[in-house]
């Protein structure tokens, strides 16, 4: 190990061969020659991270010690800086024998090696500090990795990031491995080695879309919960007398004040949600090259994500409760073994007009086709779609009626009513379509979700029948993707379900003509090509 900090500084590699040679016989000799440290700006990033964890302690100290509080704060700051310095000193990475190796830890040293062949994507993000110093935070993802990136280098220069990308075979140039879903029109082009290689932009969010996305987002409830939990956390941190005072003021105030407070909190939540969405989704662009999609988004913290096309197992077109009347949808992607399973990271397109979905999908993930129309469950399945939600609503309603006093008990009637509405919405949304390349399953639960999956990558297909279904000749079909998420369609004709199961695993198309009986108003699809535009089932987007 070199102890000279200058030698460890992340200057670009002297050997230019490093950027172009992803072969195991990399530039570094089997020894420790090319081991590097992160950019010194990591001191600031790491220090702030440690400091963030020390905030509760700092507040406690200031409250408890009063005059000597300042000294304690300085001591804490020193601890944070010291910890960052130590962490920076002991963290070293190198590309050795075609694998990225990260060594870290002072007392308990750890060493992590990720072979280039296992790297599924090299993503980057830039927070405020990284921007200030012209750096990026590099995240090396592996197939089968968990939620966290396998290796995260939080402060490297652009050039260094490009060098590592190249060394791991994920440079701007198309990788050697061709994707399973190659673009028909774009043969391998001459690679531009610069990070600003002009890959075609497939999607870029407009200001209008950003605003609508922020105002109709489903995050509102989540933010409300977050604000609530933050408030309860804050109670632990704040001095007791303050919370007591606040409590007293609250209990002595009338219901009007309380309602106003609640309304205010909701408003704050809405504003926070809107700002959060704007910050996260601003400048959202998706570019596509031969083998992968690159997603770039974010205002304060700029993030890039990579979706290897050959790992796309499907997409979900989500039409939220508020967005559907406005005819807008969100597209999420199902990628196997890709970290960041949360909704934000899975988002491939934050907002797009429904009419533009088919064309956009064709450019994003060629091979996954938006179905012109969907087959429906048989008409006799309608009441079964209603039974369960109405029954569930009735149970809730009865419980509510028993608990609520006087006239409010009538609210209990809302239970079965809402149940019926939900059941009807589920019935109206339910549909499926299968071609050799695309399995489409649509369902509704607050949002209308259309899953488009690659049949050849479905992990298993099951047909379930409960006793009622066995009597009624119906069945439920469910599929599991490698992302462990499911697609499901309930109450199909049992013969249709069996044939569909067979056709999915055999990757033959299935048009369902012989067995599917469409309900009134939703004619049975015969063939995608012969579908007249006026014959769509209710709510299906037109081409």
């Amino acid at each position: 190990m070199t102890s000279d900090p200058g030698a460890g500084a992340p200057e670009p590699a002297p050997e230019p061969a490093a950027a172009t040679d992803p072969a195991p016989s990399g530039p570094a000799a089997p020894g420790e020659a090319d081991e590097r440290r992160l950019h010194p700006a990591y001191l600031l990033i790491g220090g702030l991270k440690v400091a963030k964890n020390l905030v509760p302690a700092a507040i406690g100290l200031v409250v408890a010690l009063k005059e000597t509080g300042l000294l304690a704060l300085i001591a804490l700051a020193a601890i944070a800086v010291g910890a960052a310095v130590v962490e920076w000193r002991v963290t070293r990475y190198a590309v050795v024998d075609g694998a990225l190796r990260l060594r870290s830890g002072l007392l308990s040293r750890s060493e992590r090696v990720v072979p280039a062949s296992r790297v599924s994507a090299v993503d980057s993000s830039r927070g405020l500090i990284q921007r200030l110093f012209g750096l990026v935070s590099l995240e090396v993802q592996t197939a089968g990795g968990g939620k966290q990136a396998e290796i995260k280098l939080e402060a490297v220069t652009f050039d260094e990031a490009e060098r590592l990308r190249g060394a791991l075979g994920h440079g701007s140039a198309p990788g050697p491995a061709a994707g399973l879903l190659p673009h028909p029109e774009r043969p391998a082009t001459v690679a531009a080695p610069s990070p600003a290689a002009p890959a075609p932009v497939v999607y870029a969010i407009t200001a209008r879309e950003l605003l609508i996305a922020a105002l109709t987002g489903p995050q509102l409830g989540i933010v409300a919960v977050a604000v609530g939990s933050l408030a309860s956390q804050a109670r632990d941190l704040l001095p007791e007398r303050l919370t007591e005072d606040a409590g007293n003021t609250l209990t002595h105030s009338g219901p009007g004040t309380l309602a106003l407070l609640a309304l205010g909190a909701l408003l704050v939540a809405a504003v926070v949600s809107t700002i959060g969405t704007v910050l996260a989704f601003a400048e959202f662009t998706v570019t596509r090259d031969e083998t992968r999609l690159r997603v770039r988004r974010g205002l304060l913290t700029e993030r890039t994500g990579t979706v290897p096309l050959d790992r796309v197992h499907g997409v979900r077109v989500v039409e939220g409760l508020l967005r559907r009347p406005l005819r807008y949808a969100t597209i999420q992607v199902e990628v196997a073994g890709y970290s960041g399973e949360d909704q934000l990271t899975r988002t491939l397109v934050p907002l797009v007009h429904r009419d533009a979905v088919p064309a956009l999908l064709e450019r994003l993930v060629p091979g996954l086709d938006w179905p012109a129309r969907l087959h429906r469950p048989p008409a006799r399945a309608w009441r079964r779609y209603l039974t369960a939600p109405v029954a569930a609503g009735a149970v809730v309603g009865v419980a509510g009626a028993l608990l609520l006093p006087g006239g409010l008990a009538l609210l209990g009637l809302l239970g079965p009513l809402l149940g019926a509405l939900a059941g009807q919405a589920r019935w109206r949304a339910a549909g499926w379509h299968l071609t050799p390349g695309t399995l489409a399953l649509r369902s509704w639960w607050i949002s209308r979700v259309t899953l488009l999956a690659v049949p050849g990558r479905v992990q298993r297909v099951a047909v379930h029948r409960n006793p009622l279904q066995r009597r009624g000749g119906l069945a439920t079909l469910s599929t599991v993707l490698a992302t462990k998420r499911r697609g499901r369609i309930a109450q199909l004709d049992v013969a249709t379900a069996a044939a569909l199961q067979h056709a999915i695993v055999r990757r033959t198309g299935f048009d369902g003509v012989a067995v599917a009986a469409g309900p009134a108003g939703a004619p049975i699809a015969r063939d995608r090509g012969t579908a007249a535009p006026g014959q769509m089932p209710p709510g299906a987007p037109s081409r």
Partner: protein
Amino acid sequence: MDDERSPRSAGPPLPGDVGRQRLSDRAVAYWRIGTAIVALPLAIAATVAAVASGAPGGLATTIVVVAWVAAAAAIALLPPIRRRRWWYAIGEEEVDLHHGLVIVTRTVVPMVRVQHVDLHRGPLSSQMRLAEIELHTAAGSVRIPALDRDEAERIRLRVATLARIPDDL
């Protein structure tokens, strides 16, 4: 009972439509013993609790009767139904399974999705020369329980051979 075939779609039939295998004859006895090990102590505990708690006579009697009837049903009635429902078929391309007491499920797993195969044997099952096969995919696993040990070994070998075709995730 098992009336769902795949009549109307193209291509060769699924393995379960060609030949179905049943679980071992000893599966019923195995499940009965396994259930009894759990159910009988529970029924005894319920009896003791009902008597010792000094609940009113009618209630205590009801609890005791319900507990023992449930235990008896779980031991006597369910295992034969379960075995009758169960079938499996292992073809070149797919693994086809059919099972379920209340909700009857037929699951098809494409062979190329199988990542590895486990063979489980517990103290009771190895005593009865039985074993369980677990097929792992990227999205969880499926199991074939109460197989004759030699048959389980054959399945393990067969699936391991057939699933060797490399699968890209």
